[in-house]
């Protein structure tokens, strides 16, 4: 089977501008893009944000208060953790885990889920039944429990984490791709493509996929946000990114033991997760309203 190309088919510029001028979702789009730029620069150039190393321990400087509080540290703007590691450096370097892992998982789940959904929706019959039964089966069970079980079996690690998160996300893609494909299958442009003698794979890729891609892109933003929170929780439980790597979930787990001495150890990584997840939620919402007014909630 040919590999389906999931490159986004953006709408014509004119229609984009017309809706954008109506106000509404544009500020959400800009806000989320700003956060994305911030995250990308933290991933690529962490040295621009902090001089400290996220792993360097200085046991003499344990649990220092942040720079703005009385008696706070001047070298460590956000203070230090129980091993004397710089909190700002850990949060900045932490951007290398949660967001890229979730984006990779959504890319994998989007590819697999879209292929399965298109196949199910286009061919129907037994294939459809099996794929959709499997997707429904996975959706009916709490994802976090599935993830826990698989994580316990596979063991902690970045690659395993991507696989586990993708496992929780493909059913959403499969369901949507299937529904959209089934509704497009008998449209005139599909009949025309078939009449032109295109092979099935080429027809699905060149004619069907661009027409269903806007829903899939919209789901992408929301799924990245959902998986970021799931990733953080798995790391929090010790089943995700292995310590001492500074993933935000790990940091909350270790900071939890020092709620009285240094509450910022829990607050700061939580805010980082929240900011990133909200940015991707807004991205999904804004794209939904820009690309697909039918899906805009409520009105």
């Amino acid at each position, binding site marked *: 089977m040919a590999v389906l190309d999931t490159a986004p088919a953006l709408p014509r510029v004119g229609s984009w501008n017309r809706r954008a001028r109506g106000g509404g979702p544009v500020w959400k789009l800009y806000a989320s893009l700003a956060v994305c730029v911030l995250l990308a620069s933290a991933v690529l150039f962490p040295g621009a944000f902090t001089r400290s190393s996220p792993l360097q321990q200085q046991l003499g400087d344990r649990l220092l208060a942040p720079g703005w509080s009385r008696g706070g540290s001047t070298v460590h703007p956000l203070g230090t953790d129980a091993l004397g590691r710089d909190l700002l450096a850990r949060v900045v370097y932490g951007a290398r885990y949660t967001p890229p892992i979730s984006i990779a998982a959504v890319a994998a789940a989007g590819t697999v889920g879209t292929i399965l959904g298109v196949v199910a929706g286009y061919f129907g019959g037994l294939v459809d039944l099996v794929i959709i039964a499997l997707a429904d089966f996975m959706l009916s*069970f709490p994802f976090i429990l599935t993830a826990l079980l698989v994580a316990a079996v596979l063991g902690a690690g970045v690659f395993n984490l991507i696989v586990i998160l993708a496992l929780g996300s493909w059913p959403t893609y499969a369901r949507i791709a299937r529904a959209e494909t089934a509704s497009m299958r008998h449209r005139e442009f599909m009949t025309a493509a078939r009449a032109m003698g295109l092979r099935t794979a080429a027809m699905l890729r060149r004619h069907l996929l661009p027409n269903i891609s806007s829903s899939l892109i919209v789901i992408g933003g929301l799924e990245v946000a959902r998986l970021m929170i799931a990733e953080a929780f798995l790391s929090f439980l010790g089943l995700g990114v292995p310590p001492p790597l500074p993933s935000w979930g790990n940091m909350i787990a270790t900071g939890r033991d020092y709620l009285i001495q240094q509450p910022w150890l829990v607050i700061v990584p939580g805010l980082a997760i929240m900011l990133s*997840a*909200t940015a991707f939620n807004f991205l999904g919402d804004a794209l939904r309203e820009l690309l697909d007014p039918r899906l805009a*909630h409520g009105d």
Partner: protein
Amino acid sequence: MVRYLALRIVQAIIVAFLISLATFFLLFIAGNPVHLMVGEGATTGQIAQFSHQLGLDQPILSRYIRFVAGMLAGNFGESLFMRGQPALGAVLARVPATLELAAAALFSTLVLALVLGIAAAVKRSGPFDHAVLLGAALAQGVPSFWFGIALIMLFSVHLHWLPFAGMGTWRHLVMPCATLDLYLLPTFVRLIRSRFVDVLREDYIRTARAKGLGEPRVYVRHALRNASAPIIAALGLQSGHFFGGVVVVETIFGWPGAASLIVSSVVQFDYPVVQAGVIVVALMIASSNLLADAALALSDPRVRYASPE
């Protein structure tokens, strides 16, 4: 209707069976738990003897048959870490705590979501509506495990108002419930709001207003009644999502329910308890779906008399 429910029950049993199958093979891949139980210093002989006692040295097919036979008799074996405790009994003993938390959270979320969702829909596109939608979008990005810890930090560590863990009094219930509310509210509020927006456009609402009914009566007697069926149906589909939140909240607040038992058993590799727990969860989700179906049929005669699809 009876036929439809019977069909759903059969479906639920098949799903639970498939889940047990998946769990069994997953734990089989994970390998022999005896290594974890006996510790570092054990000899090969001790491991072999222990494996034999637990029936772990037999071929996979016979182990699976024994597992299914045991499961049908309600016997998942004994817990590996709580000596002498049957796994299923250990899980079932903790189900009431989970149900207490779930019921309290569901009730409080529904009340809040109905108030916010209806108020937003009535003044659609007004400032309150925008505030509710923005609030829902922001709440969706909050990791609930972190929110729970933040609540503990504020109300237990600093203010000493509420106990940070355990269950018993209503004060134990406040923070777990609030955390679950925040987790569920975005979905619930959006759903209720959008159903209400649709219903309020219907002709019968105009008729109700035209015949001089007061606004509260229009919303409750006419709009809520008609909006409730799709709301119940959609909420039934959310039970998996809901239980995911219960897992997080029980873990953070040390709530002695079935979900936190499963999490600790997964981490400790107490696989009989994991197997029993997963089945119990699957059945709990299936029965809440059934309850939603039954509630749907009660609230909407069209569902009751329609033939099953």
